[in-house]
């Protein structure tokens, strides 16, 4: 059997095997010791380093201490790398030693090998193989039983997860309201579809908070905010925030009672850092939105949350950062079961702007569209264009339309500039958008061309309102201008002589304008300026009113007012 190896190889094989075997054992021992001693965590968790760092906290200017830390850190790192190097070199040497050991052991085995002798094994015994087979069957059955036992043991510790509540199909309400239901309410900033118009409402013609005339009720709002009220049946929702909390309030339409206050609680209980915001924007500028199932609110901190009508938080998440100059102010919009959030930040080239749609039931993202636009304060609006929904957004330099279902961009028009805050309106197949302090623009949905432009009475913050034939705009300086909706031709102008941040609204045929001081004008919509009423809130106002039936809900600096005949 030793035919394959020369004699001298076989002679050398044993000492080589012994020597290499000893070397392998020695190197293995060295590696084990090195591994036991060389935990890297000793550097990170070195008691000495920790102690010195603690000392440094109490003596931050102690240069000698800093130098000691640096020296110790360097020593520990050097030792660590030395040990790593040693480990790698020893491993390689061990492999080489092992190869020598295997080869020499092979030759030892070959030189000592002897031929098998079946006589020594004896004759095959009758029954022996049956016995082995029987044992083998038992071993296989035992193995299978062991696996079955393991499965049973595993089944005793199943994953603990809450099971979903059973869905009762018959009792379940539709996931979202119909367009007709929405039209009957004032569910979002400037009403359903963001048009700022309630054709079936009637406006009170005079009120005075000082005398209480036509003030049905007045309720203090706990925290300030620039957001406007939204209404669903008998519930009025408002938001308010300060540096410690972001809240949603529900008031009763009839009595004005504050029914509940809900504070946004993000999972984990942490509140994002409060961004710097301008005094005219505040920490609760975006108006909430409701679909009759839940009310949704977003805050400049990045908190966005949904509450049911009893004030219980359904979901909350951090959608931030939402920081931009002046402070985040875009209100939420809603389309069916998609909550639409316009987040425009920085410059177009920064790539930080986006349009996001969240699932109204879970808050999970449904789609997201990147936007190459600058920071804006305008609110997104969903218009019905020829029976199809179009989500219209305004930000420097584009008016962009999206499909609110999947976020696919439908068209865009480069017609805006500057800091865009006014929201668009649409009627009679004409969209009116505002490039602050520059132009008012009329354009057809889907059209690349601008239908008309006007540079008269251009606002910087307030949004237009239309009665279907005319567009009414009041700018910050109080210049109220009426334009022809289709041509953009100015029909009339009137100087109200006050400052305005609140966007005007239409209740029936009455145009209602509330100034920053709280003074109000009721003007008949038409081809001539005709003042039909006046009011006074007695406190500052930056929020747009919400007309409900014959009443008007207005948020002042500190109070929520319900105006109407008692």
């Amino acid at each position: 059997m030793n035919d394959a190896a020369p004699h001298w190889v076989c002679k050398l094989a044993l000492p080589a095997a012994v020597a290499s075997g000893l070397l392998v054992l020695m190197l293995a021992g060295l590696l084990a010791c090195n591994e036991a001693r060389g935990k890297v965590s000793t550097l990170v968790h070195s008691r000495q380093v920790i102690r010195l760092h603690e000392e440094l906290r109490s003596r931050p200017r102690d240069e000698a201490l800093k130098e000691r830390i640096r020296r110790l850190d360097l020593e520990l790192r050097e030792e660590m790398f030395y040990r790593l190097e040693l480990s790698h070199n020893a491993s390689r040497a061990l492999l080489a030693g092992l190869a020598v050991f295997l080869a020499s052991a092979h030759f030892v085995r070959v030189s000592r090998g002897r031929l098998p002798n079946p006589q020594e094994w004896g004759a095959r015994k009758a029954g022996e193989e049956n016995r082995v087979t029987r044992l083998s069957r038992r071993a296989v059955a035992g193995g299978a039983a062991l696996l079955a036992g393991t499965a049973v043991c595993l089944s005793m510790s199943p994953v603990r997860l809450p099971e979903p509540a059973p869905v009762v199909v018959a009792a379940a309400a539709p996931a979202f309201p119909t367009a007709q239901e929405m039209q009957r309410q004032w569910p979002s900033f400037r009403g359903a579809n963001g048009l700022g118009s309630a054709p079936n409402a009637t406006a009170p013609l005079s009120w005075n908070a000082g005398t209480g005339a036509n003030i049905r009720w007045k309720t203090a709002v706990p925290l300030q905010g620039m957001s406007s009220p939204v209404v669903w049946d008998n519930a009025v929702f408002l938001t308010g925030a300060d540096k410690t909390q972001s809240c949603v309030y529900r008031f009763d339409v009839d009595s004005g009672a504050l029914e509940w206050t809900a504070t946004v609680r993000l999972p984990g209980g942490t509140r994002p850092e409060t961004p710097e915001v301008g005094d005219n924007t505040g920490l609760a500028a975006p108006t909430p939105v409701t679909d009759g199932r839940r009310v949704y609110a977003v805050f400049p901190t990045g908190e966005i949350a949904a509450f049911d009508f009893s004030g219980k938080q359904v979901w909350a998440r951090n959608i931030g950062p939402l920081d931009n100059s002046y402070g985040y102010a875009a209100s939420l919009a809603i389309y069916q079961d998609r909550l639409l959030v316009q987040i425009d930040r920085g410059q177009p080239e920064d790539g930080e702007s986006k349009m996001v749609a969240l699932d109204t039931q879970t808050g999970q993202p449904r789609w997201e569209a990147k936007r190459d636009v600058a920071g804006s304060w305008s609110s997104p609006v969903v218009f019905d264009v020829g029976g199809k929904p179009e989500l219209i957004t305004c930000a420097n330099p584009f008016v962009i339309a999206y499909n609110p279902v999947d976020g696919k961009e439908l068209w865009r028009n480069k017609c805006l500039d500057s800091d865009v805050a006014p929201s668009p309106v649409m009627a009679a197949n004409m969209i009116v958008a505002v490039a602050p302090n520059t132009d008012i623009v009329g354009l057809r949905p889907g059209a690349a061309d601008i239908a008309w432009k006007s540079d008269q009475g251009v606002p910087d913050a307030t949004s237009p309102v239309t009665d279907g034939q005319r567009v009414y705009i009041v700018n910050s300086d109080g210049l109220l201008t009426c334009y022809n909706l289709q041509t953009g031709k100015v029909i009339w102008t009137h100087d109200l002589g006050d400052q305005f941040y609140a966007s005007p609204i239409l209740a029936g045929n009455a145009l209602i304008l509330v100034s920053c001081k709280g003074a109000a004008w009721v003007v008949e919509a038409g081809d001539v300026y005709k003042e039909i009423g006046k009011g006074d809130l007695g406190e500052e106002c930056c929020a747009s009113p919400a007309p409900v039936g014959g009443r008007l809900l207005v948020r002042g600096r500190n109070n929520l007012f319900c105006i109407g005949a008692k």
Partner: protein
Amino acid sequence: MIELLADQRFPPPEFTETGHRLPGFTIALPRGPWLERLDIIVLVAALSLAAWLVLRQRSRRGLVALGIFSVLYFGFWKKGCICSIGSIQNMAQGLADSSVGVPLTVLAFGLIPLVFALVVGRVFCSAVCPHGALQDLMLMKPVKVPAWLEHGLGLIPYTYLGLAMIFAATGGGYIICQYDPFVTIFRLSGSVLMVSSGIGLLVLGMFIGRPYCRFACPYGALLGLASKVSKWRARITPDTCTQCRLCEQSCPFGALNKSTVDAPSRTVRTDKHLLAVIILLLPVLICAGVWGGGAAGKSLARKHRVVSLAERVYLEETGKAQGTTDESAAFRVTGAPVEGLYAEARAVRDRYVTASRLCGGWIALVAGLKLIALAVRRKRDDYETDETRCVACARCFKSCPQELQRLGLPVPEGARLAPPP
């Protein structure tokens, strides 16, 4: 360049006051496409060479040389990746999830050895697989594992295969790679546990031939099944078996089936009653396996990161766990609703339950077929290699006097030789 494990990394020193700029991280580039093609060519060449060495040359020495090459090339040079054993997980995931692509090289490493096994038996195991070759080279003084134990432990590779398929197909991870005991040796780096397992298996392999291949390797189980139908495979004798019994103790892997020619008559009887019972009980056994798999699936799902995170968050939410883990804290920072996480986790768990049922049925089927095979006695005229378990190492060749005569080597005294044709 020294490679470091995650737990060997530590914070960089603060050089802010000295203005020192830290060098950026260096990430090893992937192997170039031509190198990947080369790997496939080398694999095919090595398999062809192994088949030639086993079937035509009947050369143990050639296989040892090829084994050393495979350990160096597929093991140390390629650092054990891609390996055929792990590639079946990529294929399982690719089949289960259409969004997951399986690279051509991975597909080639998974399928080519299987195709060879279908034709020429487990030549891949003989000297091409670096894991097998390394263990083969380590074998010093083989100790015979009792046949009954060999059969009992033979269930493990099929179980491991089933579990690996579950975890890969459901996104729970590649457990074959995670718990590969030899890859740490090829890379000279790894966790203490895995390095110890690798060394332990090698030391064990000095006395018990190829312990990983025989009692753990899921790919070996597949190759064994494939080689059952192979037309050509390693034969002990190059000529006619003379029942000399010289080869009887030559296989260190228990992969040799004795001839029934000289056996006492009782050993060739098939227990027909037992066979009928096992065949009738097989559907019941499979149903029990499906049920057991489904029951275990809800626990196995914990291996998936989403399920484990959801469970942790749920325990925190219900006050059954105090504090947060890194994962749960990171999840909470995202602000995502927990209901969404729970729903996703439930969907993953349900996938695990389905996959575990299949796995349970598979294991039960294997156990049932093994019992059937043990109840059947086959008549054998020759001493033969076992078609499933033989790894074509060629150790038995030179124990046959016919082979010695063929090679012109001295034949043991008294050995029976086949009469000349």
